[in-house]
């Protein structure tokens, strides 16, 4: 800053010299007129007036005065704060806690909810889904319906569609073996609708009025930038080359720009790079039956000025007309209405949104608590410095200058806290990386970016104002005269000041209680979730999720050619107790297949069974040994269930209940023939599983049907759907996952090089991840709540210690007049008592209102659970009284002689 002050100084010096010259000229003129030197000098000085003031006023014309004062204030604030380093460190650390929590949470919110989509005007993009008496359908719509919307709707400028069946990996053959990609099939006008165009080459060009791709482009493909760079080393000559995707040949027509991703769901779930195939209509697309016609996701762009509601109303009006040609009445009823959702919104499910808002709110509360705590400290400091400020006022500082200086101090503290907080936030994000990524499927790195820094800056300024504005204005308003006349600097904290600080502490207690109640509720939720009887054992199970280019096994039975030998080798590994194949482990989210009946007729049974949606799983006979679940009736699969033996299925209790309407006699279903494995190969039910949590820990058991993998041959109807996609390998072993994984990976690589990309996890981890949003929220709230509790207790302690120090003489006098230790202590404890009661009372009301928003995140506990509220209140009460005990004991130990002598 020295060059700056030198600059100021030079101009100041010149001005001073100019003024000196003026006076000197005047003096010599007067002396020329015959006055004596001393007389002339006096007259000249008098005539000139206040030279310093002239200099100051003139200097201000150069507008540097402001900057100069700013610099001086900053320098002075820095010096004072460094002198009272204990105070500064406390303030900075406290504020940093609040700032770090808020900016970390905002980083997550920004990454998940506010993430800018790489499309033109993403706000007008709308997902169109059919809906019916069962609510919005969980899948897309047949082409014929989409075609009708395209023709009839005026609310949309464009409607495009794509196939969302991209969760499984596709295999793009390259120089270095097959690359796992996800391939979406898109209608020819989809990219046009998104406003995205290839950075290299061209879009799918020839298109018919219906939007599907026809002609030569049927075998064209668009690559994403990532695929182009990793697989083809960014070679621009790729255009026109032929590539092999899942064994099919495509010619590359273009490369999409860097950062372009679509769709955001499904495929991107695993963060696989994308390629886009043309959506070519087939014969089945002329059908309108569920399971018969392929379903597509429809994406529309609203015309300018059309609202979502208006568009929905328009489509709803003619949807009943559109579904008339449905041959099946049930299918028709399922699709006779429309549900629209903004595309941006459809990317984040409601639970995640809720969890994020709850956490964002919690972090904001923590920030507020931190600020209140610091405000209280600043009050105390301003009071202690009353004399200093009064002296400044007496020396000519204007009120505004004092306020400006105090604000500068606040700004400096807040700024340092924000820098520290930024570091803490980065650390916190690192710590919760796994949870955040699995819960919010964030794949970009979570580092504070520009919007986050903007928020941080806003927090810094708001924090500085919050902590210093109030004390500063109060200090500036104080009368200089009265303050200077007062004796010791310790005296003179008026009742109003004191009440103000007490109010701050009361607010802090109330906010902390709210935060802690929320934290308590989530902890109870986690406890409840962890103690849900899952129906199977989770410990010591290693799970591998395998993805395999099934087209390479075309014409062969993957079970006998690949999987079964693999399992046999795994079983022979040392320390492996048992191993099984299954399409997806319970609570796993890698594969889902729903089984539905098509019963004819309108009997009560038929209607009920039509509504039955069962989880479908193909499993190995060893599954029972690995997961150790119970059979309710009948038997599980065993070695005797072979491709040639009687086809068998196993269902669970929930299935029985949905099938018969009750589960009084689960054995009744044994021997029923529910499903055919192929021509003339009906299966029978041989066993009923007891209930298990297979979809999510919080949801009760869903109907489930299991078939035995060895019985599923390529001819049977489930083969392609179940085995072709993905397969999990579950291994029960006492050895640790880190030891077993390399050995398993070795076996897989030997079986097929494509399997080396399999991912490994443990069953415990999968269970933990399945209630992850609650788990994550609870862990974060633990940190927020714990910090809030500490801050709050520090606030109580700080205020009471200050009071005791301030009332030392009074207390000494009381003791001298015969007050007992207990009387003195109760004096202080009473003070703590009313603050706690007021704070806790307000806090309980706030918590009651505030935690209502948490309801959907909770499990096994109600938002207004009195036990949680009670326990948290007790915790704060005991903690608060303990914090008050220290200053109370100090008060009781005041030596009356000592205290009174100080007077």
């Amino acid at each position, binding site marked *: 800053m020295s060059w700056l002050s030198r600059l100021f100084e030079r101009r100041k010096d*010149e*001005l001073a*010299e*100019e*003024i000196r*010259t*003026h006076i*000197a*000229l*005047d003096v*010599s*003129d007067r002396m020329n007129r015959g006055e004596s030197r001393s007389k002339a000098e006096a007259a000249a000085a008098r*005539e*000139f*007036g*206040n030279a310093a*003031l*002239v*200099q*100051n*006023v*003139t200097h*201000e*014309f*150069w507008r540097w005065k402001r900057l100069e004062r700013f610099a001086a204030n900053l320098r002075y604030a820095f010096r004072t704060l460094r002198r009272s380093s204990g105070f500064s460190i406390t303030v900075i650390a406290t504020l940093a806690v609040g700032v770090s929590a808020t900016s970390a949470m905002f980083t997550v919110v920004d990454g998940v909810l506010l993430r800018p989509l790489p499309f033109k005007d993403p706000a007008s993009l709308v997902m169109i889904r059919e809906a019916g008496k069962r609510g919005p359908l969980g899948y897309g719509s047949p082409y014929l319906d989409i075609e009708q919307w395209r023709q009839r709707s005026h609310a949309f400028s464009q409607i495009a569609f794509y196939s969302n069946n991209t969760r499984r990996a596709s295999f793009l053959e390259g120089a270095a073996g097959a690359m796992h990609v996800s391939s979406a099939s898109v209608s020819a006008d989809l990219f046009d609708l998104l406003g995205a165009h290839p950075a290299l080459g061209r879009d799918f060009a020839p298109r018919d009025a219906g939007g599907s791709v026809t002609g030569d482009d049927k075998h064209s493909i668009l690559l994403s930038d990532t695929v182009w760079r990793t697989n083809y080393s960014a070679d621009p000559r790729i255009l026109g080359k032929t590539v092999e995707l899942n064994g099919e040949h495509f010619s590359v027509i273009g490369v999409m720009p860097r950062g372009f991703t679509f769709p955001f769901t499904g495929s991107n779930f695993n963060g696989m790079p994308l390629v886009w195939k043309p959506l070519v209509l087939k014969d089945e697309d002329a059908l309108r039956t569920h399971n018969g016609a392929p379903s597509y996701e429809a994406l529309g762009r609203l015309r300018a000025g059309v609202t979502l509601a208006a568009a929905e109303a328009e489509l709803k009006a003619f949807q009943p007309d559109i579904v008339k040609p449905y041959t099946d009445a049930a299918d028709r009823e399922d699709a006779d209405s429309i549900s629209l959702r903004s595309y941006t919104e459809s990317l984040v499910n409601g639970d995640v949104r809720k969890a994020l808002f709850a956490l964002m709110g919690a972090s904001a509360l923590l920030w507020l608590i931190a600020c209140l705590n610091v405000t209280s400290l600043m009050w105390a400091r301003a009071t202690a410095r009353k004399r200093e400020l009064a002296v400044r006022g007496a020396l*000519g500082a*204007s009120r*505004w200058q004092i306020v400006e200086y105090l604000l500068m101090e606040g700004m400096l503290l807040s700024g340092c806290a924000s820098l520290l907080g930024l570091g803490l936030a980065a650390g916190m994000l690192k710590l919760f990386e796994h949870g955040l990524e699995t819960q919010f499927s964030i794949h970009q790195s979570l580092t504070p970016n520009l919007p986050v820094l903007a928020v941080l800056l806003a927090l810094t300024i708001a924090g500085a104002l919050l902590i210093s504005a109030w004390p500063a204005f109060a200090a500036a308003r104080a009368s200089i005269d009265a303050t200077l006349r007062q004796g010791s600097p310790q005296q003179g904290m008026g009742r109003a000041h004191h009440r103000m600080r007490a109010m701050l502490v009361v607010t802090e207690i109330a906010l902390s209680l709210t935060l802690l109640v929320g934290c308590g509720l989530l902890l109870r939720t986690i406890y409840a979730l962890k103690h849900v009887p899952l129906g199977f054992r989770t410990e010591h199970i290693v799970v591998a999720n395998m993805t395999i280019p099934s087209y390479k096994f075309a014409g062969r039975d993957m079970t006998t050619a690949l999987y079964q030998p693999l399992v046999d080798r795994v079983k022979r590994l040392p320390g492996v107790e048992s191993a099984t194949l299954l399409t997806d482990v319970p609570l796993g989210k890698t594969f889902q297949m729903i089984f539905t009946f098509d019963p004819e007729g309108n009997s009560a049974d038929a209607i009920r069974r039509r509504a039955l949606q069962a989880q479908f799983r193909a499993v190995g006979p060893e599954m029972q040994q690995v997961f150790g679940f119970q059979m309710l009736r009948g038997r599980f699969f065993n070695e005797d269930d072979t491709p040639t033996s009687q086809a068998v299925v196993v269902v669970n209790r929930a299935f029985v209940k949905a099938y018969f309407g009750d589960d009084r006699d689960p054995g009744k279903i044994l021997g029923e023939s529910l499903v055919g494995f192929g021509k003339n190969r009906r299966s029978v039910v041989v066993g009923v599983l007891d209930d298990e949590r297979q979809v999510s820990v919080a949801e009760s058991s869903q109907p489930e049907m299991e078939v035995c993998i060895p019985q599923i041959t390529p001819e049977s109807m489930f083969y392609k759907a179940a085995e072709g996609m993905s397969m999990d390998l579950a291994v029960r072993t006492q050895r640790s996952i880190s030891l077993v994984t390399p050995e398993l990976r070795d076996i897989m690589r030997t079986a097929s090089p494509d399997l080396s990309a399999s991912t490994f996890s443990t069953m415990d981890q999968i269970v933990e991840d399945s209630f992850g949003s609650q788990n994550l929220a609870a862990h974060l709230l633990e940190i927020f709540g714990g910090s809030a509790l500490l801050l709050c207790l520090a606030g109580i302690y700080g205020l009471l210690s200050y009071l005791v120090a301030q009332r030392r003489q009074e207390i000494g006098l009381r003791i001298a007049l015969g007050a007992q230790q207990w009387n003195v202590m109760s004096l202080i404890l009473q003070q703590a008592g009313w603050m706690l009661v007021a704070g806790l009372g307000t806090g309980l009301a706030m918590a009651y209102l505030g935690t209502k928003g948490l309801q959907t995140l909770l499990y096994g506990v109600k938002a207004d659970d009195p036990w949680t509220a009670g326990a948290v209140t007790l915790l704060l009460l005991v903690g608060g009284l303990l914090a008050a005990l220290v200053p109370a004991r100090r008060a009781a130990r005041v030596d009356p002689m000592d205290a009174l002598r100080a007077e």
Partner: protein
Amino acid sequence: MLGRNGYRNRVELLQGTLDMLILRTLQWGPAHGYGIVQALRTQSGEALQVETGSLYPALHRLERQGWVRSEWKQSESNQRARYYRITAAGKKQLVEDLSRWEQMVAVLGGILKAAPTE
């Protein structure tokens, strides 16, 4: 702020007239602050005593606006002094100020001298 309120232009010149007077004085040649005060006093027949508290701020304001330029030179009494010189922009400004001033005098004169009409 304390300083500004405490230091008004006590000469009670009409707003903006000081700038005009300074520029006018500088038209006869460069001058330092003291010289300008003396020149104005002499020309007004000792009636106008410009306060330094108004003069120096005005001079620096004019310099910042680019109407005058300053340099350090030796004075006739062999003293180093800051001399102000009117610039081309300053001359243009003065012409404008003068015509506005004359207009105002005419308008005010018309009002003040008009006979009251019943």
